[in-house]
């Protein structure tokens, strides 16, 4: 260090300082430096805004470094959507405009200050939004058929969600920047890793829609498809609302097996189908079983199976309500079987661990039917979830 000080002094004064004086001089400089730091610390305490703005700018810089990941995910998902639209005859010149229109599409939730009839209004809004979204896709990709349209709708929805996450993160980042607000910046910094993780999870779903392979959420329909095969159900009936039903007999008990119509990416309206079936049979059903993927808690194992009571369905409300209402009207026991998985596994291509659980779920359903449905009775088994890559009859 002495050599360095010597060199600096030599450069300044064009002559070296005698070595006997150098140590004293260095000690003096060091003391001065510490003294200045000490003074600055106390002075900065007189101006707390200065410290805060310093921390804010550090925080904003860290957010800025991370937020580019969301930009990349947004860009790549839009590119995938553009490729898919082009595959079905989209106009290359207006592609950017079309992508913007699709990814910025929104729906407004119904007013909840007067909750009476809110589920009907919500269902109506969701139906109209879906109809409008599909019409737009059809308009931009004129060569798309009905099956491919459902899958393309999934791709567009994923791009839309990733774009929304990016927009929200950027909104708060820019807000913190604009007002130099430390507290907003901190909140964005805390939540950003979760947003990035969520956006990555959605991004992982894209290859499933482009390749048309089942996703983790499709375990419910896959169980039903396997039951069709096991019980030799060769024909299924379209019951409307994008749902199909097949009938089988298991140890003198009738099984009505319901799922969304595959293999395109559909979830259908299981609630409406259940209501329709229960009404048509005047409630002469001994058991309703819903099978669905459910989010696991951290620490739980992927593919764990659990059984409970209620309707296992993760819709915004209307479909679940219809299932509960139908069960209640005729006092039909409502049993739920869930296959636990992380959010990431639920929306990305199905992993083997989850696919391997289908047989175990079928065994559980069989035991349940034997236990609760008398001979000659009827059980309605519903596979809830996206049926992408899962066909219908055997």
């Amino acid at each position, binding site marked *: 260090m002495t050599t360095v000080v010597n060199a600096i002094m030599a450069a300044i004064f064009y002559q070296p300082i005698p070595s006997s004086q150098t140590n004293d001089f260095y000690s003096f400089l060091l003391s001065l430096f510490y003294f200045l730091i000490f003074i600055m610390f106390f002075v900065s305490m007189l101006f707390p805004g200065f410290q805060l703005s310093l921390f804010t700018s550090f925080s904003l810089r860290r957010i800025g470094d991370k937020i580019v990941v969301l930009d*990349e995910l947004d860009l790549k998902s839009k590119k995938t959507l553009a490729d898919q639209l082009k595959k079905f005859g989209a106009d290359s010149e207006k592609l950017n405009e079309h992508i913007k229109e699709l990814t910025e599409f929104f729906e407004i939730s119904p007013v909840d200050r007067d909750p009476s009839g809110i589920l009907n209004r919500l269902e109506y809004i969701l139906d109209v939004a879906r109809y409008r979204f599909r019409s737009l896709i059809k308009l931009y990709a004129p060569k798309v058929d009905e099956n491919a349209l459902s899958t393309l709708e999934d791709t567009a929805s994923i791009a839309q969600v990733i774009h929304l996450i990016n927009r929200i993160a950027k909104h708060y980042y820019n807000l913190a920047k604009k007002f130099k607000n430390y507290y907003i910046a901190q909140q964005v910094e805390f939540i950003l890793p979760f947003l990035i993780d969520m956006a990555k999870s959605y991004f992982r779903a894209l*290859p499933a829609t482009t390749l048309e392979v*089942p996703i983790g959420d499709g375990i419910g329909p896959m169980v039903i*498809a*396997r039951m069709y095969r096991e019980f030799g159900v060769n024909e299924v009936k379209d019951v409307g609302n994008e749902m199909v039903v097949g009938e089988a007999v298991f140890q003198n008990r009738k099984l009505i097996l319901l799922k969304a119509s595959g293999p395109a990416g559909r979830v259908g309206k299981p609630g409406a189908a259940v209501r329709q079936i229960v009404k048509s049979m005047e409630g002469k059903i001994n058991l309703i079983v819903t099978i669905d993927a459910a989010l696991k808690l951290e620490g739980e194992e992927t593919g764990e199976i659990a059984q409970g009571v209620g309707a296992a369905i993760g819709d915004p409300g209307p479909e679940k309500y219809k299932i509960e209402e139908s069960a209640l009207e005729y006092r039909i026991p409502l049993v739920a079987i869930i296959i636990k998985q992380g959010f990431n596994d639920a929306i990305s291509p199905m992993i083997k661990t989850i*696919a391997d659980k289908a047989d175990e779920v079928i065994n559980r359903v069989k035991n349940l039917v034997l236990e609760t449905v008398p001979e000659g009775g009827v059980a309605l088994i519903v596979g809830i979830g996206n049926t992408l890559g899962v*066909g219908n009859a055997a």
Partner: protein
Amino acid sequence: MSEKISVFFEQTLNIRPISQLECTQCKHKVERPYKEKEYVNKIVEDKCPKCQSTMYVRAIYVYPQPKQL
């Protein structure tokens, strides 16, 4: 683009799904790479290596990847 996100894109976009086929007669199961337009319950052209009967797609899945970045 950072290296981490490049690896993420590469791992995510280049998945290789597997089709698990089952013989309609002897229930023998085989795995092979997924072919385009295949879906669960679809009868495929592959023949059972044991009894030469027709096979169908029993499941389509991917093997869990090593922890992604």
